[in-house]
Structures are given as C-alpha cells and as structure tokens.
C-alpha cells in the first residue's frame, strides 16, 4: 500500500465548503484504479489544519493518477477553500491493520 497525504489549511469560515469539496472528490476517486480509500483528518487543536490521506495499491497507481489531468480536476474545488497551497507527502506502509468497527468484545 502507498499513501499520499495532503496537508491543507482552510480559509477561515470555510469549513462546510471544504469538507463538502472533499466528499465530492471522494465520489470521483472511487472509480480510480488502484484507489483503496481515504480519510480527511481535521486537527483537533484548532480549526484550520487538515490532512487528507489517499491510500493506493501501489506507488505506480498513485503516480498514474497524480500525473494525469484528473488529479488537477480533483484538487481544484478543494484548493479554492485553502488559504495557501497544499503540501504533499508520500509514504510507504510497512505495517497496517487493526481497524475495528466496534470495540473489542462486541457491542457498539
């Protein structure tokens, strides 16, 4: 697995628009070959900082998407809600797992 993480800073007051733009982008990503899922993380200590994690099957699949026009088209509505250009960091994933839909032992 390969992860592309975009660090984003929101224009003050644009939370609803920014999160809506990410939801719309997620809908587009679901048809991308190699796309494995994403999370939008909102910094819990303040309003403006977000990290958007995009998970891919391989670096090659990410790069095919990243170098296409589809990436720019995906980013444009999101970037309109940012106070500065996003910064991108890429990660290999040496260890993964442990996700649970409910607490250990059942319930919830």
């Amino acid at each position, binding site marked *: 697995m390969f992860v592309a993480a975009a660090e984003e800073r929101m224009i*003050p007051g644009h939370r*609803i628009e920014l999160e809506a733009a990410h939801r719309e982008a997620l809908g587009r990503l679901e048809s991308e070959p190699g796309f494995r899922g994403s999370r939008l993380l909102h910094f*819990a*200590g303040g309003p*403006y900082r977000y990290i958007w994690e995009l998970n891919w099957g391989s670096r090659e699949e990410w790069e095919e998407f990243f170098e296409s026009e589809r990436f720019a088209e995906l980013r444009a509505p999101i970037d309109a809600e940012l106070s*500065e250009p996003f910064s991108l960091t890429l990660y290999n994933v040496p260890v993964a797992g442990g996700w649970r839909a409910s607490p250990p032992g059942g319930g919830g």
Partner: protein
Amino acid sequence: MFVIVVQIRAADPEAQARQHGVYARIAGRYPGMRYKHVMRSESDGDRYVDLMAWETQQQSEAFGVDPEYQRLRPPRSATRTVPRFLRDDNPGYYGLVAETARPGAAIARQQVVFVDARPGREGELAAAGRRLAAGAGGLAGLTSLRVLRNLGWPARHVVAVAASEAVEVAEAGPTRTAWERLAACCTAPPEWESGHLVVRWDADDPGGT
C-alpha cells in the same frame, strides 16, 4: 467543556471591544455558550487574549456558521488573505483539565500563561494543574482559575486566572507548591501575562461588560 483561545493583534481597543461584544451577543443566542472573556495585555496594548467557552464543540460549530457572525468576517477574496496571527494553534481548541470559579464575582485583573509539557510529563502537568485549581479555591479575591489542554497537542496547556484583586498563584500559600510542580513539568519557565478585561459575557450574567 470546549474552550477556544485566540491571541489577537489589533491596534484599536475600542473597535476590538465592539467586535467582541457583538460576537458575545450573537453567541449568547446559541445554547451551550458559557462565557467569553477578552483580556487586553498590559505589556502590549495591541495584544488581546480571548477565551470563549462552550459546553460542546458541536455547539460552538453551530455558532460558527451563524449568518450574522459570518457577516462579521472579512469577505471572501481572490487573494485569500489571512491575518498573520492565525496559525495552527491560533485559534486553539482546548478542553478543561480543571477549574475553580465563583460565578458573578468581579474581575479587575486577568492573567494567562501558555505552557508546553516536557515529553512524557503531560500527565504530571495535568495532575499539578488539578491541584492548582483545587488550591485556588482558598485564594481571597480569586474569581476563576482554569487549566486548559489543547485538544490536538496534548503538551500545550493554558492557565487562565481572573480575580477581583491582585492574586499571584505562583506565590500564594494555597497554590505555590502546585504551581512549582506544574512549572517543573514545562519545557521553559512559564511567563505570566497580565491584563485587564475588555469584554465579559457569562451565561449566568448575559448583560456583560
């Protein structure tokens, strides 16, 4: 409790007081607003520290999209200019570690300090903060002492004091030891900042200042 702490630079104290007063009036219409206290620094008259408390973050966010409040914001612009004082930790989102408060008591002076815990000593700092708040209940003239922890950076804490007369928690009998323990957990010696109140809104006294 969810507390937003904002450090602001502005040169016009009357305009700042008017703006914060309007914010308080609008926010007071929303359930869950608990207090808004704005301090103007004595050492730097262009610096303000604003503490605004809500019962929950969701209630704060409901206020954040209020149309009247949004009209107070700078308009959207192609340049997306953002005031320089706004950063990842400013505004900061905080949770309450401990407090002692006397509702309705006067506020003649405020003090605030921002501290960072040494790695691994965050829990110890919070424990010292709880002892500090407990001891502060014995201080004459104290209106409130609150210890807050940043919800995204667990090392970052704020201690905010409001009093009707001069109170030095670092020196007073009931709080000196707890303060020394708290300070020993910090990455740097804490530096208190003092100031006076320019806006006060409390849920139990919405007439405010």
